[in-house]
């Protein structure tokens, strides 16, 4: 599974991770918590953080079993 990070998150974690999460990590929220544990410096819990699963906005409870790409989008800066 390809995981993309943008803005400040991309700088902290890296632009892209190729990750096969353990079977218990099967939702957006579980993945977010796993990444937050591995990258304590990255702000993965802020209220304005958005996650897209295969280009669609997703919530913490949404499944990621069939996802090929997950994008973590920190608060937008605007143009």
């Amino acid at each position, binding site marked *: 599974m390809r995981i*993309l990070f*943008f*803005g*400040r998150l*991309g*700088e902290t974690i890296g632009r892209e991770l190729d990750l096969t999460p353990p079977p218990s990590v099967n939702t957006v929220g579980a993945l977010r918590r796993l990444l937050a544990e591995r990258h304590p410096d990255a702000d993965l819990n802020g209220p304005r953080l958005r996650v*897209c699963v295969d*280009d669609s906005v997703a919530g913490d409870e949404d499944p990621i079993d069939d996802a090929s790409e997950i*994008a973590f*989008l*920190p*608060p*937008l*800066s*605007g*143009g």
Partner: protein
Amino acid sequence: MAIHSRLADTPFEPESELAGFIAELDGEGAVVSFVGLARPATKTGEAVHGLFLDHHPRLTVLSLEAIAAESERRFQVSAVRIVHRCGAIRPGEPIVFVAAASRHRRAAFEAADYLMDRLKTEAMFWKREDGPDGSRWIEPTDRDYADRDRWR
């Protein structure tokens, strides 16, 4: 309906964009355009050597298209163009160009104003300012959100 949104990863010329926009019109009587330029200083006055606008490979251009389409739905405009830079931008370079055309001027003024307020808060970009004291990532200000909320 002529709606164009483009993400530019190299510098663009606002004059050419405006000329191209006008050349494609079909009898409209009013054109309003706006150009946003990279400032050489932060809000608090520190020097900025450059900006970096990070973007998503697909969703960023979709966000521009959605904002352009919504302006056409809300106002009596018949042509809209958005050009937005991404990547490394030097102070003084254009970051954004918007233009709106309508039969009469009011709709074009309102649409251009609306486009910029939405772009400043909802276009999918992450902006980093690089200066002599390091780099920092920027978020919309309360003022930017208040400007956007005028249109709710």
